[in-house]
């Protein structure tokens, strides 16, 4: 017999379906931690470089999201309006 009503970490999917976009933040932090571990010029600057790289990823993705939103909600309806 197996009880499954409760969420089990690492076994069941995390119930954050409405906040999925926030998951990019820890992913960006871990990417920066791992990448800067081998590409950081001076290990003394490591925390600062991790922070800068994390912000670069997040701002870059934010700009991409804004650009895609503009294309989909403004540009495409302007170029190819849906006939009413």
């Amino acid at each position, binding site marked *: 017999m*197996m009880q*499954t009503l409760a969420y089990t970490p*690492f076994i069941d999917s995390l119930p954050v379906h409405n906040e999925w976009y926030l998951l990019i933040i820890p*992913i960006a932090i871990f990417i920066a*931690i791992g990448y800067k*571990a081998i590409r950081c*010029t001076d290990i003394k600057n490591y925390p600062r470089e991790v922070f800068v790289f994390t912000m670069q990823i997040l701002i870059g993705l934010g700009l991409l999201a804004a650009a895609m939103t503009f294309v989909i909600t403004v540009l495409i309806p302007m170029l190819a309006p849906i006939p009413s």
Partner: protein
Amino acid sequence: MDPAAAIAALVFPGLGHILRKRTTRGIYAAVGVLGLFFFGLLIGGIDAVDSKEDRIWFIGEALVGPVTFAVDYVHQTQFKAYDPGSKEFRTGYPDEHRVKTPNGWEWEKLTPAQIDAGMGPPNTKGLGRLNEIAMLSIVLAGMLNLIVFLDALMPPALKPAPKGAPGPKRELAAAAGLPSGEGEQ
């Protein structure tokens, strides 16, 4: 080339750097790679690592190393079972539970009373966007580990420039991740 460091890096993320006395970098690399891996597992559950149903994703996930194969082994042996109807080996539906039969583990339908009592499969299938983000996180861990592995396999060819020495050699050494005369290698 440093084959010993490369083998160590294959066994565990960052171990190759630790073997090359770049301990701090090795630990940070391990935190990055394993952080992404376990964060993916936290989001998507154990279903995010599946060599049978998500074969292409698993190729990228396998780059993390033996830990991926261990998680996949546990997933295949402890969480899946045969469907006697379709002869499929799969994750259970919410109205099923695993039962041991002479032929191995099989899925058996539950009665409404059993479902009300809280019985069900050992895990739920990861679906939709969360499942994709979880698998993406683990594949990113694999890609990152590939970079870490290559860095451990091929130690930087340039020698470190003397401390304070200006010029392109020092910049190249820095770009290759060599010490600039300060801090750890």
